[in-house]
């Protein structure tokens, strides 16, 4: 039999850029955002940046635990999440601080989260958001399930799920995209391709020319955007959200960006990447070009930074004034109704907490504790 050719939908992937690093604008593609919208977007991006810097310092001072900074990814996050309604769902990984705060997570909760406190994982009762998900890529099937459920119930909600470039190597990424395509659910997958999965660069992560093209294998639209261009990210996201809401299925968006900071505060990037590379990306900073754009649009941004800093300072103060965690809190919410053995364990801890501080441990010469009745109860 001869070799034949099979038609596949496309052999090219669209790349969208509207506002480049030098502030040049493609006015034909410029999304219709009002000055108040632009200001809200800007404020959220500045909040993301300033909080990020503050959290890194808090970690260095030992006031919070390990933190995954977002510096450089503010446009990728805010441009996408801005396209959602409150009734839509947002499914984060663990590097979406700016987007999560936009969605209604308080700064105190984010601080609790990175301080190892369960209180940081509880969304507000009316908030359609999942908490941070740490195992890479495993949140994506949840987004597909949420989207299926929304469709099943007849709600017009859209689900937006985030992951990074490293996650695209995980099986869950592919399974989620495949299920989403087969079920044609209202989901938007946003890959923040920040070039590095800890120390592994994108070229060691995938042999594909783009991440966006992986959508083609699942029969869904894929688009690559300049992830440091908030206008482009927003335009692509709005299009994908509208398509999902109209019942036309899921989309994969690759936002090409860069992690300007460390992977987490436990990481030292000087081991694996050059200063020149970082400097080159600093010139593409999403905030710099957006600030220039706002100036041209006559959107006044004076005072935003001070306002954001005051909000952060108040939240940090509230966080540090919070009472220490109650150890018994670990027993709450393990089950709907705690099993008897768990109640007993809780009582044991409660009892220990009531006791005064225990005396120093006895040495080897301490009297042995007598064993209770060995085989004395013959039946």
């Amino acid at each position: 039999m001869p070799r034949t050719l099979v038609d596949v939908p496309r052999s090219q992937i669209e790349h969208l850029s509207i506002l480049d690093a030098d502030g040049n604008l493609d006015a034909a593609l410029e999304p219709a955002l009002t000055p108040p919208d632009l200001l809200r977007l800007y404020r959220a991006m500045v909040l993301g940046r300033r909080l990020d810097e503050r959290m890194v310092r808090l970690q260095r001072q030992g006031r919070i635990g390990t933190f995954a900074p977002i510096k450089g990814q503010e446009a990728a996050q805010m441009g996408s999440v801005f396209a959602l309604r409150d009734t839509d769902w947002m499914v984060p990984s663990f590097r979406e601080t700016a987007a999560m705060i936009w969605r209604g997570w308080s700064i105190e909760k984010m601080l609790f989260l990175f301080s190892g406190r369960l209180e940081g994982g509880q969304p507000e009762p009316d908030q359609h958001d999942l908490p941070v998900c740490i195992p890479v890529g495993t949140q994506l099937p949840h987004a597909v399930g949420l989207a299926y459920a929304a469709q099943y119930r007849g709600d017009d909600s859209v689900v937006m799920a985030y992951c990074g470039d490293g996650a695209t190597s995980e099986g869950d990424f592919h399974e989620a995209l495949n299920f989403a395509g087969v079920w044609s659910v209202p989901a938007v997958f946003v890959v923040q391709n920040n070039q590095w999965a800890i120390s592994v660069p994108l070229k060691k992560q995938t042999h594909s020319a783009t991440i966006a093209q992986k959508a083609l294998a699942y029969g869904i639209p894929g688009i690559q955007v300049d992830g440091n261009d908030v206008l482009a990210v927003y335009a692509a996201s709005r299009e994908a959200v509208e398509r999902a809401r109209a019942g036309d299925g899921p989309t994969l968006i690759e936002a090409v960006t860069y992690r300007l900071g460390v992977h987490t505060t436990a990481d030292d990037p000087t081991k694996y990447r050059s200063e020149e590379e970082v400097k080159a990306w600093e010139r593409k900073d999403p905030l710099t070009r957006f600030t220039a754009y706002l100036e041209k649009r006559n959107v006044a941004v004076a005072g935003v930074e001070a306002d954001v800093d005051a909000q952060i300072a108040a939240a940090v103060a509230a966080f540090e004034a919070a009472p220490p965690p109650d150890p018994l809190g670990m027993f709450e919410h393990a089950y709907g109704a705690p099993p008897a053995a768990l109640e007993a364990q809780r009582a044991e801890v409660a009892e220990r907490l009531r006791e005064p501080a225990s005396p120093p441990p006895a040495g080897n010469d301490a009297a042995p504790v007598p064993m209770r009745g060995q085989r004395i109860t013959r039946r």
Partner: protein
Amino acid sequence: MTKLNMVKALNLALQQEMERDADVLVLGEDVGVDGGVFRVTDDLQRQFGSRRVIDSPLAEAAIVGTAVGMSLYGLKPVCEIQFSGFAFQCFHQIENHAARYRQRSQGRFQCQLVVRMPYGGGVRALEHHSESEEQFYAHIPGLKMVIPSGPRTARALLAAAIRDPDPVIFFEAKALYHAAKEEVPDEPEILPLGRARVDREGQHLTLVAYGAMLRVARDAAETLSAEDGVETEIVDLLTISPLDRETLAASVRKTGRALVVHEAPRSFGPGAEIAASIMEGAFLSLEAPVNRVAAYDVPFPGFAREKANVPDVARVVAAARATLAY
């Protein structure tokens, strides 16, 4: 009352729970048109449609992962994993997420879902089709682990699992699917999770068993009664986790001796926790160390050698005699 085998009994539970609650969905490989490879979901797609009985793509992680998402939205999915040996491909979704979402979200979300899986040997099946892995799930806080022992308990426990607000791993012994039929009430029946059942009363020895091993325990008890004049009490666990420690302790306080039987490998198996629980609850009544008959600590050796590995009546009787003679 209708006489049903375990497959039909499970099907009845699914059918009635789906009729009762529009939020209950079934998803898995081949569960729709085919009715499942063991026919447990037979005819459900015809009755409830393909949106509620979903023939999913072949991917265990996404079957459970999407079910987690559905449950976060408020639906009550029942997943079928074709064989428990394949569930390691979704183990992370169970351990990392289904078991933890209630705590992670501090009660804002719960994962009211059931993952059904055929488990265990005795059906001359290849590797990954004959293992018993209940210990992995029983060890995970936030999960419940249930194993019925026959048609009636299967039906009542599956209905209870679907209504339970926590994620339930539900193991179905393949060896029991088409074994004995039992009278099953036509009206919905519920057995509470977390409660064991005394299957047979006796005063000399407590035999702890579950799933397909209940039959082995019953046959061993008959032999011990007929040949040794020993009256064995059988505790059918039904729920592995949370363990019904009270029923176990109460039985051993009466008999003074205990033998645990399971198909999972012996070391770190459920028998270890059961033995510890008996010691904690009935130490002063024990006349002999708690004994265990289990599969050996080898990977599944193939069905040609399965009989030497999985507990049978002769091994249980011999172990019981050793415990009684201690």
